[in-house]
């Protein structure tokens, strides 16, 4: 078993789509059309566009592409922070490839690198640590971002740096946490979502319990889902079953990877290194309480926010960008006036066009060749 091909079988996908259509015919569901399902995670958004799943779903079933792409919700002023640090001649900035192309208020990290700044793409925070070991005369800053999936890796890397006594390694921390943002979306009157496809890999770390309130308080079905086409289709069927039966539960479709308690060792590392911020800014969504983490005081010596002087100028999104509305599911990517014209993956204006996990970039990449 390769754990990928088996979950891409077209014949099985057709059977699932048949079942989904049958389910949609139930009078309970027909009475409340459209059924709007939000996939929280950018990884799901990518799969949905890559496999063209949206076009295969029956009428009356809508997918809303949620806020779970860390690059897409990265505010421009945060990129400016990176650029300000990169301007120091003794600094090497390291970060994930996706973060390199996010536009700041004037330029992106990639553009600044082209002008000669030492900015390097890494696959893992451990690679950034190796850059620090190899360059003792430089200050190496890892720009760490992502949800609970990437947070443990950053935490373990910081623990390693401290154990080795490295004094030239720093973290600019932009790790965020998804659950407060889901609550903010549920409390937003503009957002109409009937059910959620839950983030499989975040859940692999945090487990099922943190989502319980979505089912219990907000009465929305929530299925933790894998990322292959059959995973997603099966999850949609499970959500429709819940809606048709009048149930709202947290269920786990991705049992091969997600344990009910999540990953305890990862949780421990995160808890030892990070603490919650009172509030944190999300691009397109504004400030959300307790939605970001920072380094604990015990790790202050590694904290780039304390070691470097950072600019304090919040930057508004470009006026015509409708990223916030797309993030909330009020607008489809193609309905943005800039989509595919002023804003493209090679020259993104809005962050949703930057990462392959962003709704706009995924839509641009895969739907231009749509045969339908």
């Amino acid at each position, binding site marked *: *078993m*390769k*754990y*990928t091909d*088996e*979950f891409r079988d077209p014949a*099985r996908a057709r*059977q*699932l789509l*048949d*079942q989904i259509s*049958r389910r949609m015919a139930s009078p309970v569901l027909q009475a409340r059309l459209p059924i709007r399902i939000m996939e929280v*995670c*950018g*990884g799901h958004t*990518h799969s949905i566009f890559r496999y063209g799943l949206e076009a295969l779903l029956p009428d009356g079933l809508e997918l809303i592409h949620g806020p*779970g*792409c*860390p*690059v897409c919700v990265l505010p421009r002023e945060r990129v400016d922070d990176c650029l300000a640090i990169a301007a120091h001649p003794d600094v090497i900035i390291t970060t*994930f*490839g*996706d*973060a390199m192309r996010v536009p700041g208020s004037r330029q992106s990290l990639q553009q600044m690198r082209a002008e000669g700044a030492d900015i390097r793409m890494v*696959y*893992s*925070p*451990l*690679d950034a640590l190796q850059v620090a070991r190899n360059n003792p005369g430089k200050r190496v800053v890892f720009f760490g*971002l*992502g*949800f609970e*999936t*990437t947070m*443990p*890796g950053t935490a*373990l890397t910081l623990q390693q740096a401290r154990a080795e006594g490295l004094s030239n390694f720093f973290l600019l921390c932009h790790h965020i946490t998804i659950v407060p943002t889901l609550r903010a979306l549920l409390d937003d009157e503009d957002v109409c979502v009937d059910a959620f496809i839950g983030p499989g*890999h975040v859940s*692999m*770390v945090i487990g099922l319990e943190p989502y319980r309130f979505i089912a219990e308080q907000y009465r929305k079905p929530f299925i933790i889902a894998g*990322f292959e086409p*059959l*995973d997603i289709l*099966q999850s949609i069927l499970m959500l429709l079953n819940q809606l048709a039966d009048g149930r709202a539960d947290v269920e786990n*479709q991705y*049992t*091969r*990877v*997600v*344990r009910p308690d999540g*990953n305890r*060792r*990862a949780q421990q*590392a995160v808890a030892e290194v990070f603490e919650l911020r009172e509030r944190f800014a999300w691009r397109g969504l504004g400030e959300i309480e307790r939605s970001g983490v920072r380094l604990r005081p015990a790790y202050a010596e590694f904290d780039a926010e304390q070691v470097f002087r950072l600019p304090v100028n919040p930057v508004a999104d470009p006026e015509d960008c409708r990223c916030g509305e797309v993030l909330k599911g009020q607008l489809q990517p193609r309905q943005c006036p800039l989509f595919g014209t002023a804003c493209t993956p090679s020259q993104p204006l809005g962050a949703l066009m930057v*990462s392959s*996990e962003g709704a706009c970039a995924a839509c641009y990449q895969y739907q231009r060749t749509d045969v339908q």
Partner: protein
Amino acid sequence: MCLGVPAEIIAIEDSESQTATVEVSGVRRRVSLACVLAEGAEPELLVGKWVLVHVGFAMSLIDTDEAHRTLALLAELESLAEDDGSTGG
């Protein structure tokens, strides 16, 4: 960056630092096992197992039995569809 991939553990690189070599679609890469290794467990026991890898860290041991169970559940849909067909839907 959040796209996790299933990978097979090919060899233990360094037991002390808990690193292993994994293979993803023919590409080999070094990952940390720190998040999937139980306290005091021998890393060698994980060789041949599949893990879900994120940014250089194995984050979950993939449960083969559960994977088969999910596929078996999907296979049941086929017989379900056939049953429906024979009774005219």
